[in-house]
């Protein structure tokens, strides 16, 4: 098993495997998000309290939950890269970071456009909003650190250490922020509880959450392939690809 897995740490093999998986995952992501979003926008029943504005939930909740998942997977990849010195894991971590940042940004923006009609303000210092904002800062820190090293092997290690320190901190930050806003904020603001959601609303939401996950995986593969090419510019197989690409 270990030997079989190791063979995919070879850049050329993992590049080809990612290329083979890519169309399938892309189709799955488009299908899932298409179905989930259309179902959510057109067919899901209107919320009796929030009216049609609640339809933002079908992108807001997937983005918010997947932003956390992307961070954890980036940290796991960095950990594997640091401990077992597997370069492929470093490249994967480097390709997840910008995607995670964009997803976190989407979660923040959709949250605030939902907050404006419901709470009457674009931004409140609510626990969830604040911890999501901090998550965005953590992503930006990892991206900035990775970008500022010339030598990308070192860059991956430095960014990996930061990602791991961040992942230890995320629960602490989350907990502290929860606790802080519960002291300062009266409980007038509440996002609709998930458990009270009827099936017709829950189904498209779950489909979209899964769709966002598959989409993140797809974009990660695209970026991973680029990262492999960029880091292996001296290998003959990459050079052959490059000459073929230019001749096209």
């Amino acid at each position, binding site marked *: 098993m270990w030997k079989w897995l190791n063979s995919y740490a070879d850049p050329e093999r993992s590049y080809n495997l990612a290329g083979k998986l890519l169309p399938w995952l892309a189709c799955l992501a488009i299908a899932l998000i298409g179905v989930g979003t259309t179902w959510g926008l057109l067919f899901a029943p209107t919320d009796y309290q929030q009216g049609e504005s609640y339809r933002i939930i079908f992108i807001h909740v997937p983005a918010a939950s997947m932003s956390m998942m992307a961070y954890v997977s980036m940290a796991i990849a960095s950990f594997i890269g*640091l401990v077992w010195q597997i370069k492929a894991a470093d490249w994967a971590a480097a390709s997840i970071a910008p995607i995670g940042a964009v997803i976190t940004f989407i979660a923040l923006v959709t949250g605030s456009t939902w907050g404006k009609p419901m709470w009457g303000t674009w931004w409140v210092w609510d626990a969830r909003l604040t911890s999501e904002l*901090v998550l965005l*800062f*953590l992503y*930006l*820190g990892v991206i*900035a*650190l990775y970008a*500022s*090293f010339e*030598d990308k092997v*070192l860059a991956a*290690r*430095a960014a990996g*250490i*930061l990602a*791991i*320190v*961040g992942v*230890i*901190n995320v629960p*602490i*930050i989350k*907990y*502290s*922020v929860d*606790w*802080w806003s519960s*002291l300062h904020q009266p409980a007038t603001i509440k996002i609709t509880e998930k458990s009270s959601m009827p099936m017709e609303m829950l189904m498209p939401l779950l489909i979209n959450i899964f769709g966002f996950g598959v989409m993140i995986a797809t974009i990660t593969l695209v970026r991973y392939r680029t990262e492999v090419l960029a880091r292996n510019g001296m290998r003959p197989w990459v050079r052959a690809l490059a000459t073929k690409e230019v001749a096209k």
Partner: protein
Amino acid sequence: MNRGISYTRAFTTLFMRDIKIAIRHRGDIFNPLLFFIMVVTLFPLGVGPEPQVLSRVAPGIIWVAALLASMLSLERLFKADYNDGTLEQMLLSPQPLPLLVLAKVLAHWVLTGVPLILVAPLLAVLLNLESNSYGALMATLALGTPVLSLLGAIGVALTVGLRKGGVLLSLLILPLYIPVLIFATSAIDASGMNLPYTPHLAIIGAILAGSLILAPIAIGASLRVSTN
């Protein structure tokens, strides 16, 4: 392997060396302290001199100023040693790296954190802090500033090899400072309302214990990356 000298000896030697160097360059101690005082004096000018407003925001101002001051002073924690090659000698020495790093961070805290704790009550008077909050202010600073030094040192170790690490440093470590800020200011707030604040202190203490164990390892790993 023969380590030459004992752990205690290595620790104290490095600790005393950093203290001696700092005493010779007194600016390193006084500049962050002056910065701290300046930031705190700017706030009443910005938000207005009403005593009620000031006493409401005093814990936050003092703590935010402390965060910024500690970040400023941290920037030079490894810089000189990196430039003259001492850091590489430290990495090559048979002593465990986390121990050496801990000595440096502790020296940094004694030089910048302790003066800050001593000056804070004076600034609290200027900001009209609630009279029963002074104990909480000192206690949170005493427990919180070592955490700032430890967590900040991770960011400094990651950026020490970079030419323009300064701006990057704030992006890396300020998000990590958030829990300390939240618990410290809410402890001071609670004490102002005559509520017990020991639970908040216990949590800051727990964060301190955790970072005291884990941060030196992370700092050591980061230094190995930076000096490569």
